[in-house]
Protein backbone atom coordinates (compact mmCIF):
# COMPACT_ATOMS: atom_id res chain seq x y z
CA UNK A 1 0.00 0.00 0.00
CA UNK A 2 1.29 3.46 -0.85
CA UNK A 3 1.87 6.11 1.79
CA UNK A 4 0.42 9.23 0.18
CA UNK A 5 1.22 12.67 1.57
CA UNK A 6 -2.04 14.58 1.17
CA UNK A 7 -1.17 18.29 0.76
CA UNK A 8 -3.90 19.09 3.29
CA UNK A 9 -3.81 16.17 5.78
CA UNK A 10 -0.23 14.85 5.67
CA UNK A 11 0.83 11.21 5.15
CA UNK A 12 -2.13 8.81 4.91
CA UNK A 13 -2.60 5.19 3.80
CA UNK A 14 -3.57 4.59 0.16
CA UNK A 15 -6.85 2.96 1.19
CA UNK A 16 -8.20 6.49 1.88
CA UNK A 17 -7.55 7.56 -1.73
CA UNK A 18 -9.08 6.82 -5.12
CA UNK A 19 -7.49 7.20 -8.52
CA UNK A 20 -9.45 9.30 -10.99
CA UNK A 21 -7.56 9.76 -14.28
CA UNK A 22 -4.38 11.20 -15.72
CA UNK A 23 -3.81 14.94 -15.96
CA UNK A 24 -3.50 14.82 -19.75
CA UNK A 25 -6.99 13.32 -20.01
CA UNK A 26 -8.74 16.39 -18.62
CA UNK A 27 -10.92 17.94 -21.34
CA UNK A 28 -11.39 21.70 -21.32
CA UNK A 29 -14.94 22.73 -22.31
CA UNK A 30 -13.66 24.72 -25.29
CA UNK A 31 -11.38 21.97 -26.61
CA UNK A 32 -11.74 21.17 -30.34
CA UNK A 33 -13.40 17.80 -31.10
CA UNK A 34 -10.18 16.03 -32.11
CA UNK A 35 -8.39 17.10 -28.98
CA UNK A 36 -11.36 16.18 -26.79
CA UNK A 37 -11.51 12.77 -28.47
CA UNK A 38 -7.80 12.13 -27.88
CA UNK A 39 -7.96 13.24 -24.25
CA UNK A 40 -11.10 11.22 -23.50
CA UNK A 41 -10.16 8.01 -25.25
CA UNK A 42 -6.37 7.64 -25.27
CA UNK A 43 -3.58 7.57 -22.72
CA UNK A 44 0.19 7.78 -22.98
CA UNK A 45 0.13 4.99 -20.35
CA UNK A 46 3.93 5.01 -19.92
CA UNK A 47 5.80 2.22 -18.15
CA UNK A 48 7.46 5.02 -16.21
CA UNK A 49 6.42 8.36 -14.71
CA UNK A 50 3.05 10.03 -15.32
CA UNK A 51 0.95 12.77 -13.70
CA UNK A 52 -2.23 11.40 -12.17
CA UNK A 53 -5.27 12.94 -10.49
CA UNK A 54 -6.22 11.26 -7.24
CA UNK A 55 -8.79 12.15 -4.64
CA UNK A 56 -8.56 11.88 -0.86
CA UNK A 57 -12.06 10.37 -1.00
CA UNK A 58 -12.16 8.96 2.52
CA UNK A 59 -10.32 11.90 4.10
CA UNK A 60 -10.57 15.57 3.25
CA UNK A 61 -12.07 14.75 -0.20
CA UNK A 62 -9.76 17.18 -1.96
CA UNK A 63 -8.29 16.47 -5.41
CA UNK A 64 -4.55 16.17 -5.77
CA UNK A 65 -2.02 15.62 -8.55
CA UNK A 66 0.45 12.82 -7.97
CA UNK A 67 3.55 12.36 -10.12
CA UNK A 68 4.34 8.69 -9.80
CA UNK A 69 6.42 5.90 -11.34
CA UNK A 70 4.08 3.14 -12.50
CA UNK A 71 6.54 0.26 -12.31
CA UNK A 72 8.44 1.08 -9.10
CA UNK A 73 5.48 2.92 -7.46
CA UNK A 74 7.86 5.68 -6.36
CA UNK A 75 5.97 8.92 -5.69
CA UNK A 76 7.98 11.77 -7.17
CA UNK A 77 5.74 14.70 -6.19
CA UNK A 78 2.28 15.51 -4.88
CA UNK A 79 0.52 18.84 -5.12
CA UNK A 80 -2.97 20.15 -4.57
CA UNK A 81 -4.99 20.14 -7.78
CA UNK A 82 -5.75 23.57 -9.24
CA UNK A 83 -8.81 24.34 -11.34
CA UNK A 84 -6.86 23.46 -14.50
CA UNK A 85 -6.59 19.82 -13.38
CA UNK A 86 -10.19 19.28 -12.34
CA UNK A 87 -12.19 16.98 -14.60
Amino acid at each position, binding site marked *: *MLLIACPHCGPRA*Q*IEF*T*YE*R*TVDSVVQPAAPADEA*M*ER*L*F*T*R*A*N*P*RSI*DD*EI*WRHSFGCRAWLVMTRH*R*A*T*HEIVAIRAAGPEALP
Partner: protein
Amino acid sequence: MDADCMSRYSAFGLLRGALGGQRHWQPAWRDPEPKTSYDIIIIGGGGHGLATAFYLAKVHGLRKIAVLEKSWIGGGNTGRNTTLVRSNYRQKLLHDFFEFGLKMWEHLSDELNYNVMFSPRGALMLGHSDADMTRLAERGDAMRVSGIDADLLTRDQVAKLEPLLDMSRTARFPIMGGLTQRRGGTARHDAVAWGYARAADSLGVDIIQQCEVTGYIRDGGAVVGVQTTRGRIAAGRVGICVAGNSGHVAGLAGLKLPIESQTLQALVTEGVKPMVNGVIMSQSLHCYISQSDKGGIVMGGDPDNWPSYAQRGQPMVTGHAIAQAIALVPALSRLRMVRTWAGVTDMSFDGSPIIGETPVPGLYLNGGWCYGGFKATPASGWTYAHTLATGKPHELNAPFALDRYRSGATIDENGVGPMPNHR
Protein backbone atom coordinates in the same frame (compact mmCIF):
# COMPACT_ATOMS: atom_id res chain seq x y z
CA MET B 1 11.41 -45.31 -31.58
CA ASP B 2 11.48 -43.01 -34.58
CA ALA B 3 11.42 -39.23 -34.37
CA ASP B 4 7.71 -38.95 -35.24
CA CYS B 5 6.75 -41.27 -32.45
CA MET B 6 8.95 -39.31 -30.07
CA SER B 7 7.44 -35.99 -31.02
CA ARG B 8 3.78 -37.00 -30.93
CA TYR B 9 2.42 -37.50 -27.42
CA SER B 10 0.23 -40.56 -26.89
CA ALA B 11 -0.71 -43.08 -24.23
CA PHE B 12 1.28 -45.67 -26.17
CA GLY B 13 4.35 -43.43 -26.23
CA LEU B 14 4.01 -42.88 -22.48
CA LEU B 15 3.93 -46.65 -21.88
CA ARG B 16 6.92 -47.17 -24.14
CA GLY B 17 8.73 -44.39 -22.28
CA ALA B 18 7.90 -46.01 -18.96
CA LEU B 19 9.76 -49.16 -20.02
CA GLY B 20 12.80 -47.00 -20.69
CA GLY B 21 12.55 -45.17 -17.37
CA GLN B 22 11.00 -42.06 -19.00
CA ARG B 23 14.41 -41.09 -20.40
CA HIS B 24 12.90 -40.40 -23.85
CA TRP B 25 11.62 -36.90 -23.12
CA GLN B 26 12.87 -34.15 -25.40
CA PRO B 27 12.45 -30.37 -25.08
CA ALA B 28 8.96 -29.51 -26.37
CA TRP B 29 10.23 -26.64 -28.51
CA ARG B 30 13.55 -25.38 -29.92
CA ASP B 31 15.56 -22.44 -28.59
CA PRO B 32 16.59 -20.84 -31.91
CA GLU B 33 18.76 -17.80 -32.55
CA PRO B 34 16.80 -14.98 -34.20
CA LYS B 35 17.14 -14.85 -38.01
CA THR B 36 17.72 -11.52 -39.77
CA SER B 37 14.22 -11.39 -41.22
CA TYR B 38 10.75 -12.92 -40.97
CA ASP B 39 7.46 -12.55 -42.83
CA ILE B 40 5.66 -11.88 -39.57
CA ILE B 41 6.96 -11.02 -36.12
CA ILE B 42 4.68 -11.32 -33.13
CA ILE B 43 5.76 -9.35 -30.08
CA GLY B 44 4.77 -11.24 -26.95
CA GLY B 45 5.01 -14.95 -26.17
CA GLY B 46 1.87 -15.36 -24.12
CA GLY B 47 -1.03 -17.63 -25.01
CA HIS B 48 -2.46 -15.15 -27.51
CA GLY B 49 0.85 -14.57 -29.32
CA LEU B 50 1.70 -18.27 -29.48
CA ALA B 51 -1.83 -19.13 -30.67
CA THR B 52 -1.53 -16.46 -33.37
CA ALA B 53 1.77 -17.95 -34.56
CA PHE B 54 0.30 -21.45 -34.58
CA TYR B 55 -2.73 -20.47 -36.70
CA LEU B 56 -0.55 -18.38 -39.04
CA ALA B 57 1.45 -21.52 -39.74
CA LYS B 58 -1.36 -24.06 -39.67
CA VAL B 59 -4.24 -22.20 -41.33
CA HIS B 60 -2.43 -19.68 -43.50
CA GLY B 61 0.58 -21.80 -44.44
CA LEU B 62 3.17 -19.19 -43.47
CA ARG B 63 6.53 -20.51 -42.32
CA LYS B 64 8.77 -17.53 -41.60
CA ILE B 65 7.25 -16.48 -38.30
CA ALA B 66 8.89 -15.42 -35.05
CA VAL B 67 7.43 -14.89 -31.58
CA LEU B 68 9.59 -12.54 -29.52
CA GLU B 69 9.24 -12.77 -25.74
CA LYS B 70 11.08 -10.45 -23.37
CA SER B 71 11.02 -12.99 -20.56
CA TRP B 72 9.82 -16.61 -20.72
CA ILE B 73 6.71 -17.75 -22.59
CA GLY B 74 3.46 -17.81 -20.64
CA GLY B 75 5.03 -15.84 -17.78
CA GLY B 76 2.72 -12.83 -18.07
CA ASN B 77 -1.03 -12.88 -17.81
CA THR B 78 -1.26 -16.41 -19.27
CA GLY B 79 0.27 -17.57 -15.99
CA ARG B 80 -1.53 -15.03 -13.81
CA ASN B 81 -5.26 -15.52 -14.36
CA THR B 82 -8.05 -17.61 -12.83
CA THR B 83 -8.25 -19.96 -15.89
CA LEU B 84 -11.97 -19.41 -16.55
CA VAL B 85 -13.42 -20.21 -19.96
CA ARG B 86 -16.93 -19.05 -20.91
CA SER B 87 -18.89 -17.11 -23.51
CA ASN B 88 -21.73 -15.72 -21.39
CA TYR B 89 -21.75 -12.10 -22.53
CA ARG B 90 -24.84 -10.02 -23.12
CA GLN B 91 -23.80 -8.28 -26.33
CA LYS B 92 -23.92 -10.21 -29.59
CA LEU B 93 -20.54 -9.02 -30.87
CA LEU B 94 -18.93 -10.24 -27.65
CA HIS B 95 -20.73 -13.52 -27.15
CA ASP B 96 -20.31 -14.51 -30.82
CA PHE B 97 -16.56 -13.91 -30.52
CA PHE B 98 -16.17 -15.79 -27.23
CA GLU B 99 -18.48 -18.61 -28.37
CA PHE B 100 -16.27 -19.12 -31.42
CA GLY B 101 -13.44 -19.47 -28.91
CA LEU B 102 -15.37 -21.78 -26.59
CA LYS B 103 -16.03 -24.16 -29.51
CA MET B 104 -12.27 -24.16 -30.17
CA TRP B 105 -11.54 -24.97 -26.50
CA GLU B 106 -13.74 -28.06 -26.80
CA HIS B 107 -11.27 -29.75 -29.17
CA LEU B 108 -8.09 -27.80 -28.38
CA SER B 109 -6.27 -30.69 -26.66
CA ASP B 110 -6.73 -32.83 -29.78
CA GLU B 111 -5.76 -30.01 -32.11
CA LEU B 112 -2.52 -29.31 -30.22
CA ASN B 113 -1.78 -32.93 -29.22
CA TYR B 114 -1.32 -31.46 -25.75
CA ASN B 115 -3.67 -31.82 -22.80
CA VAL B 116 -4.88 -28.34 -21.89
CA MET B 117 -7.17 -29.97 -19.31
CA PHE B 118 -10.26 -28.07 -20.47
CA SER B 119 -12.94 -28.93 -17.96
CA PRO B 120 -16.49 -27.79 -18.87
CA ARG B 121 -17.78 -27.95 -15.32
CA GLY B 122 -20.24 -25.08 -15.72
CA ALA B 123 -19.99 -21.35 -15.17
CA LEU B 124 -22.62 -20.08 -12.74
CA MET B 125 -23.47 -16.41 -12.33
CA LEU B 126 -25.31 -15.56 -9.14
CA GLY B 127 -28.21 -13.14 -8.86
CA HIS B 128 -28.63 -11.27 -5.57
CA SER B 129 -31.68 -9.12 -6.23
CA ASP B 130 -34.74 -8.81 -8.47
CA ALA B 131 -32.75 -6.45 -10.67
CA ASP B 132 -29.91 -8.99 -10.92
CA MET B 133 -32.35 -11.73 -11.93
CA THR B 134 -33.89 -9.52 -14.63
CA ARG B 135 -30.42 -8.76 -15.94
CA LEU B 136 -29.41 -12.44 -15.93
CA ALA B 137 -32.63 -13.45 -17.70
CA GLU B 138 -32.02 -10.83 -20.36
CA ARG B 139 -28.41 -11.98 -20.79
CA GLY B 140 -29.47 -15.62 -21.02
CA ASP B 141 -32.15 -14.79 -23.60
CA ALA B 142 -29.63 -12.87 -25.70
CA MET B 143 -27.24 -15.82 -25.59
CA ARG B 144 -29.89 -18.38 -26.51
CA VAL B 145 -31.05 -16.27 -29.45
CA SER B 146 -27.47 -16.58 -30.70
CA GLY B 147 -27.49 -20.35 -30.18
CA ILE B 148 -25.39 -20.34 -27.00
CA ASP B 149 -26.39 -22.46 -24.00
CA ALA B 150 -27.70 -20.57 -20.98
CA ASP B 151 -30.04 -21.72 -18.24
CA LEU B 152 -31.77 -19.45 -15.76
CA LEU B 153 -31.82 -21.17 -12.37
CA THR B 154 -34.10 -20.82 -9.38
CA ARG B 155 -32.74 -20.42 -5.88
CA ASP B 156 -33.26 -24.14 -5.19
CA GLN B 157 -31.48 -25.15 -8.39
CA VAL B 158 -28.49 -23.00 -7.43
CA ALA B 159 -28.42 -24.54 -3.95
CA LYS B 160 -28.38 -28.00 -5.50
CA LEU B 161 -25.52 -27.12 -7.88
CA GLU B 162 -23.33 -25.59 -5.16
CA PRO B 163 -24.40 -26.91 -1.73
CA LEU B 164 -21.82 -24.88 0.19
CA LEU B 165 -23.19 -21.48 -0.89
CA ASP B 166 -24.76 -19.49 1.93
CA MET B 167 -28.42 -19.65 0.85
CA SER B 168 -29.84 -18.23 4.08
CA ARG B 169 -32.16 -15.23 3.90
CA THR B 170 -29.86 -13.32 6.25
CA ALA B 171 -26.72 -13.89 4.14
CA ARG B 172 -24.61 -10.83 3.47
CA PHE B 173 -25.29 -11.36 -0.24
CA PRO B 174 -28.64 -13.18 -0.45
CA ILE B 175 -28.87 -15.50 -3.46
CA MET B 176 -32.10 -15.35 -5.44
CA GLY B 177 -31.08 -17.50 -8.40
CA GLY B 178 -28.53 -17.68 -11.13
CA LEU B 179 -27.65 -18.14 -14.77
CA THR B 180 -25.45 -21.04 -15.75
CA GLN B 181 -23.53 -21.81 -18.89
CA ARG B 182 -22.93 -25.53 -18.54
CA ARG B 183 -20.33 -25.64 -21.32
CA GLY B 184 -18.14 -23.09 -19.51
CA GLY B 185 -15.40 -24.14 -17.14
CA THR B 186 -11.67 -24.01 -16.57
CA ALA B 187 -8.44 -25.03 -18.32
CA ARG B 188 -4.81 -25.51 -17.33
CA HIS B 189 -3.24 -22.12 -18.07
CA ASP B 190 0.42 -23.15 -18.46
CA ALA B 191 -0.54 -26.03 -20.71
CA VAL B 192 -2.24 -23.59 -23.07
CA ALA B 193 0.99 -21.64 -23.57
CA TRP B 194 3.13 -24.77 -23.74
CA GLY B 195 0.75 -26.62 -26.04
CA TYR B 196 0.54 -23.74 -28.52
CA ALA B 197 4.33 -23.23 -28.29
CA ARG B 198 5.07 -26.87 -29.05
CA ALA B 199 2.54 -27.05 -31.88
CA ALA B 200 3.76 -23.78 -33.43
CA ASP B 201 7.41 -24.80 -33.09
CA SER B 202 6.71 -28.09 -34.87
CA LEU B 203 5.41 -26.05 -37.83
CA GLY B 204 8.64 -24.04 -37.97
CA VAL B 205 7.75 -21.00 -35.86
CA ASP B 206 10.81 -19.55 -34.08
CA ILE B 207 10.02 -18.88 -30.42
CA ILE B 208 12.69 -16.51 -29.18
CA GLN B 209 12.72 -15.92 -25.44
CA GLN B 210 14.78 -13.33 -23.51
CA CYS B 211 14.36 -10.98 -26.48
CA GLU B 212 12.78 -7.62 -25.65
CA VAL B 213 11.65 -5.23 -28.36
CA THR B 214 13.20 -1.80 -27.74
CA GLY B 215 12.06 0.03 -30.89
CA TYR B 216 10.95 -0.28 -34.49
CA ILE B 217 12.75 -0.12 -37.82
CA ARG B 218 10.88 2.42 -39.93
CA ASP B 219 10.83 2.95 -43.69
CA GLY B 220 9.08 6.23 -44.26
CA GLY B 221 6.16 5.93 -41.90
CA ALA B 222 5.88 2.16 -42.06
CA VAL B 223 7.21 -0.40 -39.58
CA VAL B 224 9.49 -2.86 -41.41
CA GLY B 225 11.10 -4.57 -38.44
CA VAL B 226 12.02 -4.36 -34.79
CA GLN B 227 15.03 -3.40 -32.69
CA THR B 228 15.55 -5.91 -29.92
CA THR B 229 17.95 -6.71 -27.10
CA ARG B 230 19.23 -9.44 -29.47
CA GLY B 231 19.67 -7.24 -32.53
CA ARG B 232 17.70 -5.90 -35.49
CA ILE B 233 15.12 -8.16 -37.12
CA ALA B 234 13.30 -7.24 -40.33
CA ALA B 235 9.65 -8.19 -40.82
CA GLY B 236 6.89 -7.91 -43.40
CA ARG B 237 4.33 -7.28 -40.68
CA VAL B 238 4.70 -6.78 -36.93
CA GLY B 239 1.94 -7.73 -34.50
CA ILE B 240 1.84 -6.41 -30.94
CA CYS B 241 0.38 -8.98 -28.53
CA VAL B 242 1.62 -7.94 -25.11
CA ALA B 243 -1.48 -7.47 -22.90
CA GLY B 244 -0.60 -5.12 -20.03
CA ASN B 245 2.45 -3.79 -21.85
CA SER B 246 0.39 -2.67 -24.90
CA GLY B 247 0.74 0.99 -23.97
CA HIS B 248 4.51 0.72 -23.63
CA VAL B 249 5.15 -1.27 -26.82
CA ALA B 250 2.76 0.85 -28.92
CA GLY B 251 4.34 3.93 -27.36
CA LEU B 252 7.67 2.91 -28.92
CA ALA B 253 5.98 3.63 -32.26
CA GLY B 254 4.56 6.92 -31.01
CA LEU B 255 1.01 5.61 -30.58
CA LYS B 256 -1.36 6.52 -27.77
CA LEU B 257 -3.91 3.76 -27.20
CA PRO B 258 -7.33 3.64 -25.54
CA ILE B 259 -5.72 1.44 -22.90
CA GLU B 260 -4.55 1.95 -19.34
CA SER B 261 -2.52 -0.71 -17.51
CA GLN B 262 -3.80 -1.81 -14.12
CA THR B 263 -3.18 -4.69 -11.76
CA LEU B 264 -5.56 -7.62 -11.30
CA GLN B 265 -4.98 -10.07 -8.49
CA ALA B 266 -6.00 -13.63 -7.70
CA LEU B 267 -5.18 -16.13 -4.99
CA VAL B 268 -5.32 -19.83 -4.23
CA THR B 269 -5.78 -21.81 -1.04
CA GLU B 270 -4.29 -25.09 0.10
CA GLY B 271 -5.66 -28.16 -1.69
CA VAL B 272 -8.79 -29.73 -0.26
CA LYS B 273 -11.30 -32.38 -1.31
CA PRO B 274 -13.92 -31.28 -3.87
CA MET B 275 -16.12 -28.55 -2.37
CA VAL B 276 -16.81 -26.19 -5.27
CA ASN B 277 -18.31 -28.05 -8.23
CA GLY B 278 -18.13 -25.49 -11.02
CA VAL B 279 -17.19 -21.89 -11.49
CA ILE B 280 -19.10 -19.54 -9.17
CA MET B 281 -19.26 -15.93 -10.31
CA SER B 282 -20.99 -12.90 -9.02
CA GLN B 283 -20.67 -9.98 -11.35
CA SER B 284 -22.66 -7.76 -9.06
CA LEU B 285 -19.90 -8.25 -6.51
CA HIS B 286 -17.08 -9.07 -8.93
CA CYS B 287 -16.13 -12.34 -7.33
CA TYR B 288 -14.90 -15.52 -9.02
CA ILE B 289 -14.48 -18.86 -7.23
CA SER B 290 -13.43 -22.22 -8.66
CA GLN B 291 -11.49 -25.28 -7.51
CA SER B 292 -8.38 -26.34 -9.35
CA ASP B 293 -7.80 -29.97 -10.26
CA LYS B 294 -5.15 -30.04 -7.51
CA GLY B 295 -7.83 -29.01 -5.01
CA GLY B 296 -6.89 -25.41 -4.31
CA ILE B 297 -9.71 -22.88 -4.26
CA VAL B 298 -8.90 -20.16 -6.80
CA MET B 299 -10.44 -16.75 -6.12
CA GLY B 300 -10.36 -13.42 -7.89
CA GLY B 301 -12.01 -10.07 -7.42
CA ASP B 302 -11.83 -6.46 -8.53
CA PRO B 303 -8.87 -4.91 -10.32
CA ASP B 304 -6.72 -2.63 -8.17
CA ASN B 305 -8.25 0.29 -10.13
CA TRP B 306 -5.18 2.48 -10.46
CA PRO B 307 -2.44 2.44 -13.09
CA SER B 308 0.46 0.07 -12.51
CA TYR B 309 2.95 -1.94 -14.53
CA ALA B 310 4.17 -3.79 -11.42
CA GLN B 311 3.19 -7.45 -11.32
CA ARG B 312 2.18 -7.18 -7.69
CA GLY B 313 -1.04 -6.04 -6.06
CA GLN B 314 -2.28 -4.40 -2.92
CA PRO B 315 -3.30 -6.53 0.10
CA MET B 316 -6.39 -4.37 0.68
CA VAL B 317 -7.79 -5.52 -2.67
CA THR B 318 -6.96 -9.16 -1.96
CA GLY B 319 -8.77 -8.79 1.35
CA HIS B 320 -11.84 -7.43 -0.41
CA ALA B 321 -11.95 -10.43 -2.77
CA ILE B 322 -11.57 -12.87 0.11
CA ALA B 323 -14.29 -11.16 2.16
CA GLN B 324 -16.74 -11.52 -0.76
CA ALA B 325 -15.83 -15.17 -1.36
CA ILE B 326 -16.23 -16.06 2.32
CA ALA B 327 -19.60 -14.31 2.45
CA LEU B 328 -20.76 -16.48 -0.49
CA VAL B 329 -19.14 -19.76 0.67
CA PRO B 330 -18.59 -19.47 4.44
CA ALA B 331 -16.66 -22.78 4.60
CA LEU B 332 -13.81 -21.09 2.74
CA SER B 333 -12.94 -19.22 5.92
CA ARG B 334 -11.33 -22.40 7.28
CA LEU B 335 -8.79 -22.66 4.45
CA ARG B 336 -5.26 -21.31 4.39
CA MET B 337 -4.20 -19.09 1.51
CA VAL B 338 -0.98 -20.36 -0.04
CA ARG B 339 -0.33 -17.97 -2.89
CA THR B 340 -1.43 -14.67 -4.41
CA TRP B 341 -0.39 -13.22 -7.74
CA ALA B 342 -1.05 -10.21 -9.91
CA GLY B 343 -1.06 -9.56 -13.63
CA VAL B 344 -0.88 -6.28 -15.52
CA THR B 345 -4.18 -5.98 -17.36
CA ASP B 346 -4.69 -3.84 -20.43
CA MET B 347 -7.89 -2.02 -19.47
CA SER B 348 -9.54 -0.67 -22.61
CA PHE B 349 -11.94 2.27 -22.67
CA ASP B 350 -15.07 0.27 -23.42
CA GLY B 351 -14.09 -2.96 -21.68
CA SER B 352 -13.71 -4.83 -24.98
CA PRO B 353 -10.56 -5.98 -26.81
CA ILE B 354 -8.87 -4.40 -29.81
CA ILE B 355 -7.68 -6.62 -32.69
CA GLY B 356 -6.65 -5.02 -35.94
CA GLU B 357 -4.50 -2.52 -37.76
CA THR B 358 -3.01 0.62 -36.22
CA PRO B 359 -2.49 4.03 -37.87
CA VAL B 360 1.14 2.92 -38.50
CA PRO B 361 1.43 0.83 -41.70
CA GLY B 362 2.88 -2.63 -41.03
CA LEU B 363 2.05 -2.51 -37.32
CA TYR B 364 -0.93 -4.40 -35.87
CA LEU B 365 -2.41 -4.55 -32.38
CA ASN B 366 -4.01 -7.26 -30.28
CA GLY B 367 -4.75 -5.94 -26.80
CA GLY B 368 -7.24 -4.31 -24.48
CA TRP B 369 -8.38 -7.64 -23.02
CA CYS B 370 -9.03 -6.09 -19.61
CA TYR B 371 -9.39 -8.96 -17.14
CA GLY B 372 -10.95 -11.41 -19.64
CA GLY B 373 -8.18 -12.50 -21.97
CA PHE B 374 -7.49 -16.11 -21.02
CA LYS B 375 -10.78 -17.53 -22.28
CA ALA B 376 -10.27 -15.74 -25.60
CA THR B 377 -6.86 -17.30 -26.32
CA PRO B 378 -7.88 -19.59 -29.24
CA ALA B 379 -10.30 -17.10 -30.86
CA SER B 380 -7.86 -14.24 -30.38
CA GLY B 381 -5.09 -16.24 -32.07
CA TRP B 382 -7.37 -17.36 -34.89
CA THR B 383 -8.68 -13.90 -35.76
CA TYR B 384 -5.34 -12.12 -35.25
CA ALA B 385 -3.63 -14.68 -37.49
CA HIS B 386 -6.25 -13.99 -40.16
CA THR B 387 -5.67 -10.24 -39.80
CA LEU B 388 -1.87 -10.54 -39.95
CA ALA B 389 -1.87 -12.98 -42.86
CA THR B 390 -4.37 -11.14 -45.06
CA GLY B 391 -4.01 -7.56 -43.85
CA LYS B 392 -7.79 -7.56 -43.32
CA PRO B 393 -9.87 -8.38 -40.25
CA HIS B 394 -11.75 -11.65 -39.83
CA GLU B 395 -15.52 -11.01 -39.63
CA LEU B 396 -15.40 -11.77 -35.90
CA ASN B 397 -12.77 -9.15 -35.06
CA ALA B 398 -13.82 -6.50 -37.58
CA PRO B 399 -16.03 -4.75 -34.96
CA PHE B 400 -13.10 -4.73 -32.52
CA ALA B 401 -11.06 -2.27 -34.58
CA LEU B 402 -8.96 0.45 -32.96
CA ASP B 403 -10.85 3.22 -34.77
CA ARG B 404 -14.17 2.33 -33.15
CA TYR B 405 -13.48 4.81 -30.35
CA ARG B 406 -13.26 7.63 -32.89
CA SER B 407 -16.33 6.51 -34.85
CA GLY B 408 -18.39 6.00 -31.70
CA ALA B 409 -19.02 2.29 -32.27
CA THR B 410 -17.73 1.22 -28.86
CA ILE B 411 -18.68 -2.20 -27.48
CA ASP B 412 -19.41 -1.41 -23.86
CA GLU B 413 -20.88 -4.47 -22.10
CA ASN B 414 -21.21 -2.62 -18.80
CA GLY B 415 -22.35 0.73 -20.20
CA VAL B 416 -19.68 2.59 -18.27
CA GLY B 417 -18.33 5.02 -20.88
CA PRO B 418 -14.75 6.01 -21.66
CA MET B 419 -13.18 4.90 -18.40
CA PRO B 420 -10.50 2.23 -17.98
CA ASN B 421 -11.21 1.99 -14.25
CA HIS B 422 -14.64 1.66 -12.58
CA ARG B 423 -15.44 -1.12 -15.09
